[in-house]
């Protein structure tokens, strides 16, 4: 506790430690590579097997290529199978991500800033309620939310996915911690002296300072929305509104139903297409989210 209080006064910008001289160790690198094999092997498996035809899948060793390289025909088949439904699922997912994750990030940023930089009646209650709600199993909320949304006629529409995605308690927490130190009070005060209103100050002065935190929250809410499975499973019956996750699941389950066509090569290629955008986003935005996360962890 005292440690935390003391830490508050440290600057939040994550400083690289002054370079200590490390003796790099080949042994340690090799040992840790076991972990690397564990995390990367399934991804390698996916990449290799996305290049196989359905016959190739059954007839070849899982960790090496089959004779015929069918990645491109698999991609073409995935995108055109069943009247191009995969493309529709991709567009649905993008819609949910843009409105859901975008909205969640905007709400968390504004509210986190409000909590960090203003004192107002009921602030402690806001904190208690939000933290308490994090402990409630998210999936436990799905059934009553479904019944409520069914009453409002929202099930089987995009709103049933977008509205619940708008709340990210973790995002709020991260932005709160981040805003507390990233925006110096003096800047807000001097904007005040210039006669700027609170929202003007927020958009012109504070928002740019918050951007690493915003990118971090955005990435995590994008992952949460892109990967969402339980909520759409509960809310949607119409395959036309499925996101990618639910669509892939239904393709996979198709083989088990009577008379259903097994399309394992499409499930595998579709899975690959589903993860590529997120992995690319994480790799490209590394610098931002790593510093945002580090800042958040200072206050734990």
């Amino acid at each position, binding site marked *: 506790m005292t*440690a*935390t209080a003391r830490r508050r006064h440290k600057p939040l910008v994550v400083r690289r*430690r002054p370079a200590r001289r490390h003796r790099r*160790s080949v042994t*340690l690198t090799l040992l*840790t590579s076991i972990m690397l094999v564990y*995390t*990367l092997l*399934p*991804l390698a498996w996916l990449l290799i097997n996305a290049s196989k035809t359905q016959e190739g899948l*059954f007839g070849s*060793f*899982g*960790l090496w290529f089959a004779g015929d390289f069918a990645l491109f025909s698999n991609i073409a088949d995935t995108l055109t199978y069943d009247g191009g439904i995969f493309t529709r699922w991709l567009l649905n997912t993008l819609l949910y991500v843009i409105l859901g994750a975008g909205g969640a990030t905007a*709400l968390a940023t*504004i*509210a986190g800033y409000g909590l960090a*930089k*203003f*004192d107002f009646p*009921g602030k402690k209650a806001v904190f208690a*309620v*939000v*933290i308490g*709600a994090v*402990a*409630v*199993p998210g*999936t*436990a*909320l799905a*059934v*009553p*939310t479904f*019944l*409520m949304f069914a009453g409002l006629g929202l099930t089987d529409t995009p709103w049933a996915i977008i*509205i619940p995605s708008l*709340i990210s308690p973790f995002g709020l927490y991260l932005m709160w911690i981040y805003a507390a130190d990233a925006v110096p009070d003096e800047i807000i*005060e001097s904007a*005040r002296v210039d006669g700027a209103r*609170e*929202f003007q100050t927020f958009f012109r002065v504070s928002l740019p300072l918050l951007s690493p935190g915003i990118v971090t929250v955005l990435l995590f809410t994008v992952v949460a929305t892109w*990967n969402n*499975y339980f909520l759409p499973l509960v809310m949607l019956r119409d395959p036309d509104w499925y996101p990618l*996750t*639910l669509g*892939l*699941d239904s393709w996979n389950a198709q083989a*088990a139903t009577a008379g259903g066509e097994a399309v394992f090569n499409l499930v*595998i290629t579709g*899975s690959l297409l589903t993860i590529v955008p*997120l992995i690319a*986003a*994480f*790799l490209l935005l590394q610098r931002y989210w*790593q510093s945002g996360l*580090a800042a958040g*962890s200072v*206050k*734990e």
Partner: protein
Amino acid sequence: MTATDVNVNKSSREYPVALKRSWAGWRFVAPFMAVFALVFLAPIAYSIYLSLFRTQLIGGTTFVGAGNYVKALSDPRFWAAFGNVAIFLVVQVPIMLFLALLVALVIDSGRLYGTSFFRISVFLPYAVPAVVATLMWGFMYGTRFGLIGNLNERLGLSLPDPLSADLMLASIGNIVTWEFVGYNMLILYSALRVVNPSLYEAAQIDGAGQLRVIWAIKLPALRGALLIATIFSIIGSFQLFNEPSILRVLAPNVITTYFTPNLYAYSLSFSGQQYDYSATVAIVMGVITMIIAYVVQLRGMRKGA
């Protein structure tokens, strides 16, 4: 969480004069709280309301008070489901967090070749949806064209079927570990990055070895982050749903409709139309989760004092 309480108390003193206590802050917080009330508070209230009634084909809906709760607490299916996630919690969570801790310490030690490659590669599975992770591992587990089948065939082994009743929980545990070990590693690693460098310098002057530094400086610095990671993992274990739900296609006889509490609540609602009882099961699990998370937090804090 208490750490942030301190934060709240402190900050009310730190505000600039121009921003003293007023209702202005609500303008920023209100939009979040309005949606929050709609998608968090209203469903919680509604499910508590639902749990007090019972709907039957004959006789309609009647108020039963604590009746559903009594039924849940003596329901062998509920306890079977609870037993599964409890085993999961006791076995999978420590293994995952220990691996995460190990990797975080190794990466932080700066003694690896290609540190950032290790860091990003171990984290990468977090970006993979649970659905895709489960499909991939499910295929690999398969004895037909899966890796297990390949290995048995090529090497003449007879590896056990990971999707059999005995191994199912372990197989799911492996998938969840794969998905989240990197995420937890990153939380711990981020906490290590902000350790004051002068502590390491002092330790070096004192002639402390690597292990001593880990024990005396790094582990104490990680306490808060470990606590957060543990609490998130507890909540995650009790909510286990996606992986068993997707694997059900591959092993319908092993994964029952009451394999985990969430799966049970889901099937009660959507196959059984027993919304009242489903809400009760969800609430009971929510309360158990909160109690355990709270106890863990208290213990974690006490050790810190």
